């Protein structure tokens, strides 16, 4: 199956209609972010990091198309 799975956490999850959803394949995380911003403009106001298959990324990362993407606001455990 082709397509990204996007999971949102913390305050980001409250700003999106669903905590977990499928999203069309994108070539890299920059393209994905731009599409997400178009679809959900509220995201532009929020501070979050991206994880691709549970690894935090620091820069634009190419995507195969079936990754699990997580939108992670600043951690506040403990």
């Amino acid at each position, binding site marked *: 199956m082709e397509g990204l799975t996007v999971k949102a*956490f913390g305050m980001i999850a409250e700003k999106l209609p669903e905590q977990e959803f499928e999203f069309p394949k994108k070539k890299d995380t920059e393209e994905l972010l731009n599409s997400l911003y178009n679809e959900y403009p509220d995201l532009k106001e929020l501070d979050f990091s991206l994880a691709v298959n549970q690894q935090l990324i620091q820069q634009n990362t190419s995507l195969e198309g079936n990754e699990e993407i997580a939108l992670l606001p600043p*951690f506040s455990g403990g």
Partner: protein
Amino acid sequence: MTRKPKNIFVDGAISSEKIAKSIQNHSSKTNIGAHSIFLGQVRADEKDGSVVRAIEYTAYEEMALQKAFEIREAIFEKYNLTCMHIYHSLGEVKTGEICLFVFTSSKHRKMAIDACEELVERIKNELPVWGKELLKNSDENWKVNT
């Protein structure tokens, strides 16, 4: 010996019985000379004219368990420890209750204390866990770690 990710999450508050039992469980390991324990407790902060009554914790569990495992391995590598335990609450924890329990044991105190401190810092900075403060006036506020 290869170790695998262990579940660190506890549903709700961490009870004092669990902490006492965890200490008791080490009495047979007589090469231990020092335990260091950190307990995080939910604080009744004042927020926007109200007061925190509880924190509700959520996590990206798969990633958090993998990350906790990596941190655990790194700390075992760096310090000469006999054992190490991490428990973090998920769900609602009321003020005055315990939400984080970190426990390191070693032959001597310095290793146990230093490892415990580094472990707590790394847990707070690196685990994908979020706390939402639930206020007495029914408002909610996403916690920010300082």
